């Protein structure tokens, strides 16, 4: 049977790869150290497959047809799009997939989970998937099942729906009949703004939100997190903070256990999230 060997939540700030690739600027030393720590955790956990909960930025999910959640099921997937190569200095990459586990998470022949997943047989991942993978599995050699979420185009699924997604992933992975060590990775932000008046301020747009968010993870208090992550509260934290919701999914996969590591690492880009639940 499959086993969840760990749950991680990390930043997908798209500039991290280019700014950390050659040398580590002083204000990013903590981020580099945390990525190194998390890479070492992944190496120790020896996952056979990663279930990656990541927001799509209008690459697979667009207003012409906008689902809430989409599972990618393909043996291999392209990663990053031309605008991400142009703007973030990322390289087009190929990531191995696991269509059998992906099909199982969808429900096999019947979409029975209570979550109306969309699916794609031609998933094309963006920076929100590739940034965590580049840091956690630099060889891009662990198969990935992407679970892409709509955190960018309102109406955005409510926090409790992200929690139900996590509960579904937990139950579904536990019922998978193949012997697999499964690592769940959430990709997102703490308080974050883009395209609004508070972008690139050199600090977090809402340090109070960040502090509370880290405490929810450290205590495993899912109810407190759900009560304080409405659309309006997340907008107050920054108009791109909805991507925090992917970490609500991580909390639900970890079933209320306190995180073994929880930090909002301060940088010029705001506080960057690093959460870990080992052996949840």
């Amino acid at each position, binding site marked *: 049977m499959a086993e969840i060997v760990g749950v991680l939540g990390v930043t997908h700030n798209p500039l991290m790869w280019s700014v950390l690739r050659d040398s580590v600027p002083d204000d990013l030393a903590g981020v580099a150290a945390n990525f190194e720590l998390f890479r070492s955790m992944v190496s120790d956990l020896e996952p056979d497959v990663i279930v990656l909960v990541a927001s799509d930025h209008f690459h697979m999910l667009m207003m012409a047809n906008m689902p809430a959640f989409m599972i990618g099921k393909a043996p291999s997937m392209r990663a990053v799009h031309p*605008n991400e190569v142009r*703007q973030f200095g990322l390289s087009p990459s190929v990531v191995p997939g696991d269509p059998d586990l992906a099909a199982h998470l969808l429900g096999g022949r019947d979409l029975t989970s209570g979550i109306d997943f969309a699916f794609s047989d031609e998933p094309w991942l963006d920076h929100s998937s590739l940034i965590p993978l580049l840091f956690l599995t630099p060889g891009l050699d662990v198969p990935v099942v992407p679970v892409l979420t709509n955190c960018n185009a309102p109406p955005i699924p409510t926090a409790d729906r992200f929690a139900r997604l996590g509960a579904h992933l937990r139950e579904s992975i536990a019922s998978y009949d193949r012997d697999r060590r499964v690592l769940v990775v959430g990709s997102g932000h703490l308080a974050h703004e883009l*395209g609004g008046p508070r*972008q690139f301020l050199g600090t977090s747009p809402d340090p109070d939100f960040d502090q509370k968010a880290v405490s929810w993870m450290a205590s495993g208090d899912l109810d407190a997190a759900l009560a304080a992550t409405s659309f309006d509260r997340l*907008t107050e934290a920054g108009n791109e903070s909805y991507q925090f919701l992917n970490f609500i999914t991580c909390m639900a996969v970890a079933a209320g256990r306190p995180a073994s590591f929880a930090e909002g690492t301060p940088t010029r880009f705001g506080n960057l999230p690093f959460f870990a639940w080992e052996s949840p």
Partner: protein
Amino acid sequence: MVNKVMWEVDRSDVSLEAFKESPGEFLDAWVTKGERPVSPHPEGGSLTEGERDALKAHDYGYLYAMGVNPFLLWQFARSVSVPDEMTGEELISSFREAVEPHGYPDFHT
């Protein structure tokens, strides 16, 4: 539909070059495609005169105030204005001045 055309310009190198070369012609062609959509992934769309003018003029404050998606707006602005018109730092500053008076418009579609 403004979200869609900003997305189209940003996501494709070919579209970005065409828009920068001749924004009016690009937008005309985009609207023409929208008049004869092909299922299931329709290209193109419709634009009001105000939207069309704001896109051509890179009037980010106008677009922000009308409630376009802020992520798509920033990506569009970054792609069309940097480095041809200004540096990234200059865009951050002028963009903030343009959007700040408008607070946080509803960007539901």
